[in-house]
């Protein structure tokens, strides 16, 4: 009884895309439909690196690049030929209840000022006591930003639903929004001036308040949506695809003046996004029927290209898709790159 | 002793404690008690005798509405205690049972300590003001149940670990501890040796001074010894009811006679 389907595990962010591809693959090829398990990037990669053989998975989906330590573990278990395939980008958007306060536009500095645990004040780090969004701009002005550059914020209590610490999105949020905002607002400079070293500054910038204004969501975007549903003042962090499917209840805000969309993200104008990957066990190619075909099908123009079903669903197509296709065709492993 | 009791009888015939009229009991289709009329006198001991399965326990359980707990059991007719119909809807069976105590045929001690078994009734009726009074009540009840000497050193041992006869006496002690007005005793001495039996009979005699006692027994001798009135049941019928002396020496019904004379020992 040998396995004849492709087995995939990993990120729940990639899962929708992988399942769209798997479904189409099953429809159009003689191979059975691949099985796509979810369970998280980390768990998927962990199983991916268990070893090679029939009872091991062929592909791991991940919403982040594989880490060095993981590659080492993989290699130790005999998984030394890994093909890394970037399928596109996941846009991260800020959305609120459709008839809630007018959260239409943000700059990162405003998020920093709203959510940082401690902010520099007169040469000292003090606990952030901002309670209302409409006070943020004043505060930023006090730190030296010109108020004219700052989009207007509504009169609403600060209540942000951000991804919990288990989510890779949190990392992106902290780095691309909070840290950026820290720098933009001049807070970083102020901290450096206080004599903090670079690491400490960065850490101070990125630590988020825990007094209830910022709520970690360990679940999925549906949970964030439900939270926003019952908290009109709340604003949440979503994936672009999720937002596009829920425009009836959510409205999105621009970031630094750019409206999130597949186009603006693909072009790099919208600042908050992260790449999505899948990893193929090259050793399984040629053994597991349909593996090569599936990988190629995934990155084909028909699916992953602009206007394809993945993009329709909200995946931001990779501008360098052609290179990826070639890489998959040759099964170029990571150490060959 | 016996004689003295016989002497008592006449003068106490007057007041009726329990008056049953036209009582029928059915267990499903089984007609267990058939149209029984009976008057149970106050301050007297009434014995129910009759062959096994004739309905003695059933009728006894009617008197304090213990039959309510058997769902298959249906009762018609009227039973009055102190001229109050106990099957009246206004009657609280709890109050009734506090007044009409019962010792069951099969000893059924609670799975608690001996002390707690006996103290249970007084506790729920609030008969003791404090711990010391309770101790006294328990001791008194156990003495009356003729079991004090055997258990006084292990009052806090579980009552279920006693011998059959000891359990039966615990149950008697438990029933008298609440000082009921009427005491129904279903074969209280069946598992007792002669000495213990004598003590329990002594107790019954003592209780009779103030209360009325109904006792089911299979021992004609016992009935003759302790009771002033005797009722003979047969297949659900109350065949004969009257003064104990008369029933035993001069029964009217032939069934009574044959039951009594068929006696052994």
């Amino acid at each position, binding site marked *: 009884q040998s396995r004849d389907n492709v087995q995939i595990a990993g990120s729940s962010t990639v899962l929708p895309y992988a399942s769209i591809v798997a479904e189409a693959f099953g*429809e159009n090829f003689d191979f059975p439909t691949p099985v796509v398990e979810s369970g998280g990037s980390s768990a998927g990669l962990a199983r991916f690196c268990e070893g090679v053989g029939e*009872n091991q998975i062929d592909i791991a989906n991940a919403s982040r690049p594989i880490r060095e330590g993981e590659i080492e573990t993989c290699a130790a278990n005999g998984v030394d030929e890994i093909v890394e395939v970037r399928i596109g980008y996941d846009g991260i958007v800020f959305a609120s209840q459709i008839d809630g306060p007018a959260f239409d536009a943000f700059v990162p500095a405003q998020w920093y000022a709203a959510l940082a645990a401690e902010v520099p004040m007169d040469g000292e780090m003090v606990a952030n006591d901002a309670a209302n969004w409409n006070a943020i701009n004043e505060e930023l002005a006090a730190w030296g930003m010109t108020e004219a550059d700052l989009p207007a914020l509504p009169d609403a209590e600060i209540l942000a639903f951000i991804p919990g610490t288990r989510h890779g999105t949190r990392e992106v949020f902290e780095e691309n929004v909070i840290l950026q905002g820290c720098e933009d607002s001049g807070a970083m400079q102020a901290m450096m001036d206080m004599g903090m070293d670079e690491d400490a500054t960065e850490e101070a910038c990125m630590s988020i308040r825990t007094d209830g204004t910022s709520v970690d969501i360990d679940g999925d975007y549906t949970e964030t949506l439900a939270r926003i549903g019952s908290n009109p003042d709340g604003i949440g962090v979503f994936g672009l695809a999720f937002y596009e499917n829920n425009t009836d209840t959510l409205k999105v805000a621009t970031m630094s003046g750019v409206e999130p969309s597949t186009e603006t993200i693909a072009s790099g104008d919208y600042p908050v996004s992260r790449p999505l990957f899948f990893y193929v066990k090259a050793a399984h190619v040629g053994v597991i029927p349909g593996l090569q075909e599936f990988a190629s099908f995934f990155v084909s123009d028909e699916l992953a290209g602009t206007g394809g079903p993945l993009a329709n669903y909200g995946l931001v197509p990779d501008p360098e898709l052609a290179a990826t296709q070639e890489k998959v065709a040759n099964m170029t492993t990571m150490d060959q790159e | 002793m016996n004689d003295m009791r016989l002497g008592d009888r006449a003068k106490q015939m007057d007041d009726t404690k329990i008056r049953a009229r036209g009582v029928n009991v059915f267990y499903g289709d089984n007609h267990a008690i058939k149209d029984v009329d009976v008057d149970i006198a106050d301050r007297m001991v009434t014995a129910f005798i009759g062959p096994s399965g004739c309905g003695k326990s059933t009728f006894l359980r009617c008197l304090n509405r213990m039959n309510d707990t058997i769902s298959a059991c249906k009762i018609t007719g009227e039973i009055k205690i102190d001229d109050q119909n106990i099957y009246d809807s206004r009657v609280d069976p709890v109050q009734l049972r506090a007044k009409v105590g019962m010792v069951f045929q099969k000893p059924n001690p609670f799975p608690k300590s001996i002390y707690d078994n006996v103290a249970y009734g007084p506790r729920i009726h609030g*008969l003791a003001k404090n711990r010391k009074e309770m101790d006294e009540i328990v001791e008194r009840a156990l003495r009356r149940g003729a079991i004090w000497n055997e258990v006084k050193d292990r009052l806090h041992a579980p009552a279920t670990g006693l011998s059959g006869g000891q359990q039966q006496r615990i149950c008697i002690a438990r029933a008298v501890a609440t000082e009921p007005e009427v005491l129904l005793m279903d074969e209280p001495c069946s598992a007792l040796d002669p000495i213990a039996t004598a003590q329990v009979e002594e107790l019954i005699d003592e209780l009779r001074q103030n209360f009325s006692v109904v006792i089911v027994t299979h021992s004609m001798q016992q009935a003759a010894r302790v009771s002033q009135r005797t009722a003979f049941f047969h297949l659900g019928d109350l065949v004969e009811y009257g003064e104990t002396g008369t029933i035993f020496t001069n029964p009217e019904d032939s069934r009574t006679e044959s039951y009594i004379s068929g006696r052994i020992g």
Partner: protein
Amino acid sequence: MTDIPEGGAHPQQDGPRRGSLFAENPRIKARNRAEKRFRAYGIAAISIAMAFLCVLLFSIVKNGLPAFTQTYIQVDVTLDQEVLDPDATGDPAVIAQKTTFSYAPLIQAALVDRLAQSGIETEVTPDRLARILSSGAAAQLRNHVLANPEVVGETVEFDLLASSRVDGYMKGRVTREALARDPNLDAAHLEIIDALKAEGSVERRFNLDFITGTDASDSRPEEAGLGASVLGSFYMMLVVLLLALPIGVAASIYLEEFAPENRFTDLIEVNISNLAAVPSIVFGILGLAAFIQFAHLPASAPLVGGLVLTLMTLPTIIISTRASLRAVPPSIRDAALGVGASKMQATMHHVLPLAMPGILTGTILGLAQALGETAPLLLIGMVGFIASEYPDSFTSGFTDPNSAMPAQIYEWAKRADPAYYERAWGGIIVLLAFLLLMNIVAVLLRRRFERRW
């Protein structure tokens, strides 16, 4: 006589129990009030529990009922020979080479024709027209053609699934305003739907596929069904029932009736009660390590799921079975042993039947728990996009990749399209129906075994 105290009669009590039966003395009054209160607590407890149940069931039914209907659009599609079989070979193998992508233009053309026929004017560009249909429509066409190659070149009438947005519109979930910022569908599409509906080509009807179908990807919620995962749950419950019940009851019998009191018995006992407190996800970790990685059983298989859930359910069954075995009075055992029954016979013939209600309760609770559990399945690969096909045969149902109802519901509840949210609730209705069906035997049996002694 020794025991009777000398002092004669106890001081006569005109205590609480003297007097009329009708007149309640204060103490009786207080006690009766306490009794009433206690009874009221009981009723209140039942009512509270029932109220919660009703609220839960109401919200489940309210949210889930729409999932049982679906919108279909009737379209005549010309299966163009030029596209599907340009060389007119009629060879199924050649036709099979055309992927679903080749069928998309056919649908588009059919819709344009349809609109022209009915004289419906629209600003929707032809390439966006097909968005009123499920993206699975092409696959539906292709499957039909592969099954009947002779229809190539003909015009066939199809009942095609409407897209989830259109379906939502028909169910009142999607409004025109909401579509303003929706990249998938425009308000103009809805005009078309209204027009087609007036002609009777758009219809919302009962959707059996929801109950019998298989999972679909995120882009076609309208196609997704629960059938395969119902089967997955069925297989798992079969494994659980066949293993957990006998093992659980056997273990309890051993511990309660046979085990000598020693360290070993204590060890087992502590272990069992400890296992009850182990989070279900840890059983998933165990299942992955023991059954998949060590014993090399296939991943995503109901067999493995059933084994994991068996281990998880065992403590529940054992604890309840032991409790009810303990409640059987020893006199019953004595009676059986006294006529020369062996301990085993006494247990099997008398004690076990009397303990049956508790055993069945444990089974009901254990199976309910196992039926609704997701977390351990996450680790053994039963959550995700798994159940896209039915197993080929009865036995392969144990080992073929499959999901389970709660996993499928959990997965649906996470998906972005609100149509999946509705399906998740619909799935819960199916799950509860399954649960009731499963329990009914146990409940009836339990009622038969119940008796007082």
